[in-house]
């Protein structure tokens, strides 16, 4: 018995429910746009050596518009789901629009912005990650790679 006398095991609900919502788990298991784009116009990587997470974004452009996106990620469920959700959102947007969305998302996760823009509604399930400060970087990795790709020449 624990010295507090409290039960150590009880019903299976806790804050993991909040973090690992079904949408997140579903995206982590079945990531969208997971095939890398053949002959991409742009390509960039991002990594978090602390977690060993690695990610690569490939883009095909139609003018300024993202016509195809591929993202390969090796990482935790939060990183995988964030990546998949991002890829859905930015497909069909211009690089400029995506960049603005990325900034809005980062501000929201880091707590300097209260509300997500409507275009990011599908990323709402990630809001719970804000309560877990060590995991916030996991949600930003894909956006970081996308920003890097967008800033590339050519």
């Amino acid at each position, binding site marked *: 018995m624990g010295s507090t006398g409290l039960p150590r095991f009880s019903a299976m609900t*806790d804050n*993991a429910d909040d973090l*690992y919502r079904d949408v997140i788990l579903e995206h982590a298991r079945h990531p969208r746009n997971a095939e890398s784009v053949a002959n991409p116009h742009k390509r960039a990587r991002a990594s978090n050596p602390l977690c060993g997470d690695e990610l690569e974004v490939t883009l095909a452009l139609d003018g300024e518009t993202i016509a195809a996106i591929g993202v390969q990620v090796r990482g935790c469920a939060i990183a995988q789901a964030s990546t998949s959700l991002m890829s859905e959102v930015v497909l069909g947007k211009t690089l400029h629009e995506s960049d603005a969305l990325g900034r809005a998302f980062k501000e929201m996760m880091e707590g300097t912005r209260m509300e997500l823009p409507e275009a990011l509604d599908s990323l709402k399930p990630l809001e719970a990650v804000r309560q877990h400060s060590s*995991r916030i970087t996991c949600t930003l990795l894909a956006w970081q790679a996308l920003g890097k790709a967008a800033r590339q020449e050519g």
Partner: protein
Amino acid sequence: MRQNSTAAPSVATIRGDFPILQRQINGRPLAYLDNAATTQKPRAVIDALVNFYERHNANTHSGVHTLSEEATALYEEARARAARFLNAPSPRCIVFTQGTTAAINLVAQGWARHHLRQGDEIVLTVMEHHSNLLPWLGVARETGAVLRYLEIDGEGRLTATGREGGGIEGAVSRATRLVAVTHVSNVLGTINPVKELARQARAVGACVVVDAAQSAPHLSLDVQALDCDFLAFSSHKVYGPTGIGVLYGKEEYLAAMEPPASGGGMVLRVERHSYEWMEPPWRFEAGTPNIAGAVAMGAALDYLDGFDREMLRRHEIELTGYALKVLGKRADLTLHGPADPAGRAGVIPFSVGGVHPHDVVEVLDGQGVAVRGGHHCCQPLMEHLGERGVVRVSLALYNERQDIDQLAHGLDRVAAIFRNDR
């Protein structure tokens, strides 16, 4: 829980010594299983810190007033206490440092970079913590010495021969000038044969540095029996405060060492263009030291040595065996490290099939279970194991079967959340 018939305190009594174990985490009693990162502190250590600041606080050395004399005496008593903890021949062999990392860097900067040359060999193991690796990489870069790594077998036991089941004949060569080895692996829990390594090193005249960060809490240390030249440990891993630790060095080695840091408190006499250092160990303690930390570390060593260490070790082996049994039954886990519970010092690393260590740790935290996931500052070892990270359970004297049961319950939760058929 096994009851000992002698006067040995029960685990429940021991738990009562640690105020933090009363805490709830996410609505559950805390099952603290991250002891290899840092241990919790008993009331006696917390009281020693408070008592020092409430009753004896002053700067040490060369103060003539009463408080300064008291503070100096307490600080030097702590040095003697650390010497007894290690069975060092004299308190003069004990240098206070900020911790293990600082202690190893002190040997690297103070001794190795002045005594190693081009082509000299530094022998390490593939399981070294970055703190016992990067300082030697630095020395190698500066001096032209080369690093050579001892490998491990399938159970994480050191092998110099490449054979399964260990065997460390021929671990050193004629070119070996320094052997820097961890006594206990912070990831695998493996207990390394440092005494035998030291014997081999002695035969070729190499210096032996033992990283005892993970052995100090679990095994009785005897630097004379090990016959090492240097040994380092951190207070915070033996139930003491953070920010203080010990470098033990043989007197002849300390005498041959240059102080990498200089300033107040380490000189006898300073003139405009010359100076004269104090003797070791004070020569290596420039600036105002962590006086309260040293005193409270002394209280931690009193606390730990107040137990029958053999009895603690038996309890730990028994609990490790229980954990290995409970975890070994789970088809979703891959365990690393020695199969024999007595071959490891209360550390059990594992991975959960298809689930990132940080997701495992997060879900366990939701169940009040504190463990650590990641590379544990052992990237070369992770590469050897073919893992990017692992989850690590590490035990202390206050852990009990309930903690392991709570962990198992948490792992059920991990399995339920990350089940692949959803």
